[in-house]
């Protein structure tokens, strides 16, 4: 009885590509509307000047940078799950890897928009690229923003390839089942894949190398994003802990986003047979671990500041702890630490629903954390005469809403054109094992040697 043929796996996972419900069109339309509103807000901002946003003197970075760091942080989901679990050969990663890698690619694309959106002259964003320009000047490689350019582009390239390469065998599968325009479309995407042993070896070797390469890149990306802050002499920015702190926070928010995406997929695409409660349970345990790690970093940072009692840093410290930012600060602590600890520590509460609730809280808490790192520091720099405040204006809110809608829309469209669970990787997980090597001949020899002789 073969287990490789005619199982419902391929049928289930390919069905969304061939059948679309009315709900899909309705949701896509709604999300596209929100995205268009955001695009209109951005056009308005370019036309009238960036002054239509809420930034001012001295808080020159506001919502746009918050969202930038937030989305780049979310993009760390795919790497952790895909690359690290692939390297340690964790079997439960198989249905989860592509969902996670898709989040990474789209979150990076969305996050990388924000450095362009927040520029005073966004039409000149390409000056960050190192090209031989007619002005004969190159970018300043000492600037953390140029480091951002290199890091994010490297990570985006790596993640995109890491996502696309294992999709090739699945495209071949869809090509073989499709007719009409789909056959041509997926045929082109499959690049003529046959599935010979040579091709499989190349693919797997390539994936292994890329998994090893993409992990330091991911760590470096969010470290470099943290350098945008820690390289400046702003109170509570100029901290050596920012690199690891941001990376841990990024993985934290990434896992939360992944749990939510998987829960939605499971419900919408009826993938209950493939995304089991144990997958959510494992991810929920990771989320709990990252929550504890986040708490450890925040405690370390704040204890050091409080103990050192430097006046300029304490101004920022009290502003977040007791002053005008206190409501946001304590909401963040509850969402990032208390809520996950309570929900995810007890098996009875660590259900799929519980994991989703905790994850939604974590996403809110991590967004607030980015906000509370950026704005209070800028609002309370060394010279108290120049303290200020910040509140967002409609263009910033519209663009922010548009990015969330864009993420959902891109994810939905992806799941409509590509199997969201990697079919060939699932098949490998279900393979029958080869028989033990044949030892009967050897046993005869040994029996002869040890035969009792008269």
């Amino acid at each position: 009885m073969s287990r490789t043929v005619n199982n419902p796996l391929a049928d289930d996972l390919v069905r969304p590509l061939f059948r679309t419900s009315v709900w899909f069109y309705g949701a896509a339309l709604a999300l596209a509307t929100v995205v268009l509103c955001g695009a209109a807000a951005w056009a308005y901002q370019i036309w009238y000047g960036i002054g239509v946003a809420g930034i001012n003197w001295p808080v020159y970075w506001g919502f746009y940078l918050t969202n930038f760091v937030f989305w780049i942080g979310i993009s760390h989901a795919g790497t952790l799950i895909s690359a690290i679990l692939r390297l340690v050969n964790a079997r439960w990663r198989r249905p989860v890897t592509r969902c996670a890698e898709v989040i990474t690619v789209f979150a990076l694309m969305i996050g990388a928009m924000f450095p362009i959106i927040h520029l005073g002259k966004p039409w000149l964003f390409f000056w960050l690229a190192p090209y031989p320009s007619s002005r004969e000047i190159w970018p300043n490689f000492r600037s953390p923003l140029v480091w951002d350019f290199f890091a994010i582009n490297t990570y985006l390239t790596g993640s995109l390839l890491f996502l696309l390469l294992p999709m090739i065998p699945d495209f071949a599968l869809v090509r073989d089942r499709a007719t009409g325009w789909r056959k041509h479309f997926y045929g082109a995407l499959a690049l003529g894949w046959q599935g010979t042993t040579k091709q499989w070896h190349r693919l797997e070797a390539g994936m292994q190398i890329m998994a090893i390469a993409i992990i330091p890149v991911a760590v470096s990306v969010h470290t470099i994003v943290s350098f945008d802050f820690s390289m400046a002499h702003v109170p509570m920015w100029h901290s050596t802990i920012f690199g690891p702190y941001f990376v841990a926070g990024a993985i934290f928010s990434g896992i939360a986003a992944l749990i939510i995406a998987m829960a939605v997929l499971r419900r919408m695409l009826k993938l209950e047979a493939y995304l089991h409660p144990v997958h959510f349970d494992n991810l929920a345990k990771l989320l709990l671990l990252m929550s504890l790690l986040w708490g450890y970093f925040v405690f370390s940072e704040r204890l050091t500041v409080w103990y050192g009692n430097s006046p300029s840093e304490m101004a920022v410290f009290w502003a977040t702890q007791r002053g005008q930012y206190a409501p946001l600060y304590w909401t963040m602590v509850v969402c990032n630490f208390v809520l996950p600890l309570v929900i995810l520590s007890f098996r009875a509460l660590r259900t799929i629903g519980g994991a989703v609730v905790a994850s939604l809280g974590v996403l809110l808490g991590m967004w607030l954390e980015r906000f509370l790192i950026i704005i209070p520091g800028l609002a309370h720099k060394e010279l108290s005469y120049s303290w200020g405040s910040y509140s967002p204006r409609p263009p910033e809110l519209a663009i922010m809403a548009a990015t969330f809608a864009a993420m959902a829309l891109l994810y939905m469209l992806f799941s409509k054109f590509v199997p969201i669970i990697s079919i060939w990787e699932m098949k490998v997980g279900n393979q029958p094992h080869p028989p033990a090597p044949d030892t009967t001949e050897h046993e005869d020899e040994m029996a002869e040697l040890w035969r009792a002789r008269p």
Partner: protein
Amino acid sequence: MAHRWGMVVDLDRCTGCEACVTACHAENNIPTAGPQEAARGRAMHWLRVERYWEGDFPDVKVKFRPVLCQQCDNAPCEAVCPTYAAHQTDEGLNAQVYNRCIGTRYCANACMYNVRFFNFFNPQWDKPLHLQLNPDVSVREVGVMEKCTFCVQRIKAGKQTAKAEGRELHDGDIQPACAQSCPSGAIIFGDLNDHESRAARLAHSPRGTKLLEDLGAEPKVTYLQRQPWHESDGQ
């Protein structure tokens, strides 16, 4: 020897009249923000007079400090600019190249003195105020950072005049708008490499301090502290 432009601000003489602020606006084509935008924190005063109140009524004391770009030797704003819009010149000035600025505003965040200002909109001057613009200074467009340049246009003009007249620059030939307009002569500008100049001599005054000196930016503006004789009751 190359010039090294520096400034000394005598806090003993400063009355907080803000003539320097007005003169700077006029000289450098700084746009006015208007009441609504100023309330949103968009006012652009390259040179501002900071006022600090000490004590409670009736024993209130007020202290003035004109704060402008300190033209730091180790300016934190320069390295973070991705397009080299902020860099150090040979004469020690912190140059802001408007054409290279794409408006990331990182320099403004890195500056601990908060002396960098951003053009949130395209500046507009209602007629006939546009006739008042200084032709020696460019008008910046939206999205560009700007700050005090030590009136680099006057420095250049002074050097060109001296060269045309075939002589060396004398101390006092170059006066930025703020120094020129201060009624009490609190702002002194000069070449720190010219040891005879007033600025160089006063920079070594025992009253001299630098703003946020311990942060290591090495500012070139020296503030001369007020003397205790002002604390008495006028006797």
